[in-house]
């Protein structure tokens, strides 16, 4: 029996700006089960970062939660006290950020920072340092005791990201959020980090919410995938389903554009023409309509709902509705 850990339930988030409310997230719904790896994929500006900061509730001051709930172990985080949120952060849920070069404090040693994040533990300082060294060893940092005394600038980017992963897993969280953890690294390092993440996930049994725009990594690592476009979920489901039988034109185009999927030598790399719509001034109907080559008249007026097409596969596109296809 799988147990639900994180439920995003009809979440809508706005940013208040000078030119009106920016509708950053609209009606987002998906679950993450215990011990499951869920990938979130989408272009820059699709709301991935807003989603993560909403889950951790580390949002900018102009953020407004308009609707919906984020339930973690059944409790609505949007209603939780700041005190309770702080108890969760770095304990039950932790995060690995995108840029390893900026993610650590430059004037404190790695050891000091790894001590600081164990602020809830009652262990002695020596035990905490030993725990930190053990975690560094687990992510493949050689000679961890000595390296605890070093500063972030004395490590390479790949090492720093491994340290970030070690720090995030230190409290054995139930949920690990990985925000494009390999985007800033080169391809060989990316493979290493992903393999390490897989190993550690098997060891710690935590659920991972893995955000990336690299489809190959998502296919390799994740059980399920959520495809986001312009602040909305357009398709979600089992990772094999989505990659072999995408039901939303955006997902299809995304897969076509992934360099890993291009078989023949092309003069021009495939792209999706057009631009993401202005989130402060959303068009009527389907948000992908302007860039979709299969758009119909209905797409201009009605927003397609995120419907279940079969067990565990949802998509928001009118093409999947029988009355249209027949």
């Amino acid at each position, binding site marked *: 029996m799988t147990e639900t850990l994180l439920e995003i339930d009809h979440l809508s988030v706005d940013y208040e700006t000078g030119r009106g409310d920016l509708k950053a997230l609209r009606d987002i719904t998906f679950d993450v089960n215990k011990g499951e790896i869920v990938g979130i994929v989408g272009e820059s500006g699709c709301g991935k970062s807003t989603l993560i900061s909403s889950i951790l509730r580390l949002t900018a001051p102009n953020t407004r939660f308009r609707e919906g709930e984020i339930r973690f172990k059944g409790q609505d985080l949007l209603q939780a006290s700041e005190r309770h949120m702080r108890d969760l952060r770095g304990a039950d849920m932790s995060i690995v950020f995108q840029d390893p070069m*900026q993610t650590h404090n430059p004037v404190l040693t790695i050891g000091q920072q790894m001590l600081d994040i164990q602020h809830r533990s009652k262990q002695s300082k020596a035990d905490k340092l030993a725990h930190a060294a053990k975690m560094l060893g687990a992510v493949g940092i050689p000679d961890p005791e000595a390296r605890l005394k070093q500063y972030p600038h004395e490590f390479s980017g790949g090492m720093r990201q491994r340290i970030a992963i070690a720090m995030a897993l230190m409290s054995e969280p139930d949920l690990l959020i990985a925000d494009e953890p390999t985007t800033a690294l080169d391809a060989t390092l990316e493979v290493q980090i992903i393999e390490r993440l897989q190993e550690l996930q098997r060891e710690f049994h935590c659920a991972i919410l893995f955000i990336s725009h690299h489809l190959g990594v998502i296919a390799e690592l994740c059980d399920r995938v959520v495809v986001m476009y312009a602040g909305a979920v357009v398709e979600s489901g089992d990772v094999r389903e989505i990659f072999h039988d995408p039901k939303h034109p955006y997902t299809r185009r995304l897969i076509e554009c992934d360099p890993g999927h291009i078989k023949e030598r092309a003069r021009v790399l495939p792209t999706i023409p057009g631009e993401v719509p202005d989130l402060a001034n959303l068009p009527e109907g389907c948000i992908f309509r302007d860039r979709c080559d299969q758009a119909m008249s209905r797409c201009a007026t009605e927003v397609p709902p995120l419907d279940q097409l079969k067990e565990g596969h949802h998509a928001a596109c009118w093409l999947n509705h029988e009355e249209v296809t027949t």
Partner: protein
Amino acid sequence: MLNFATRRFGLSLLILFVAVTAMFLMIRAVPGDPVQIMLGPRATPELQAQLTAALGLDQPIWKQLLIFYGNLLQGDLGTDVFSGRSVTEIVFQQLPFTLELIFASILWSATLGIALGAYAAAHPNTLIDRIAAAVSVSFVAAPAFVVALLALLIFAVHLQWFPAIGAGEGFWDRLDHLVLPAFAIGLSWVGYIARLVRASMLEVMGESHVRTARAFGIAERRVVMVYALRIAILPVVTVIGVGMGFLLSSAVFAEIVFARPGLGKLVIDSITTRNYPIVMGTVLVSTALFVVSTALADLINALLDPRARTAH
């Protein structure tokens, strides 16, 4: 770290050498014969020749410079033309008064400025932040000599809370005499440092590592005081180190307004009496003070920021 300190010390010596040599040559280039000015129009040629020889002014300029450095290495800055006392002795007698004034000024203004700036940055765009901004800017705009005169009139003459002139005897009395001049010199620094810390803090608070610290549930107090302030403070240390030059010139005003002994008063008095050896000695010690304080600022920065240690 030791390596960095050695290199920084070497650089300081070089700066000092260049500055002192330039100053020596500049004083010699000033038109007018110092001997004639000192002895007056009615002096006999024999007397003039005697003094010229006594001051070493009959030697070629490079030899004069060598003699000057030779004496300097022995701690000899020359002799006061009028009293015949050693310049080193006179300058070092006055130095503590100026030092205590500068330290008192920077101590209170940096403490208040950093607290004000950090608080404003932790609560950006609130009413308190705006009030702090208005207060800081008006502090920056207030020139030290105007503040000194007003403080003297209000707190010493009218309210008679603090003594108006002199430097005092004994610890508490000296402290009492420091309050008004240190207030006058430090006030604009409070505003300046507060603005600097606020801007620097806001920048650091927006950096990824602060977000990381928060994402690990580290208490906001510790995030602000340790994770952000330790980085935000770096430019302030540099500014204070370089600002010693400005502080020295503000100290000249304050020492004149409050009739305090000190390097500022000494150099003004010696310039009016054309007592060149004392002018030279005072400027030399002030230059050394400035060079030492910038080196000290760099050392403190290197202690606070591990990246600075390897950057050179």
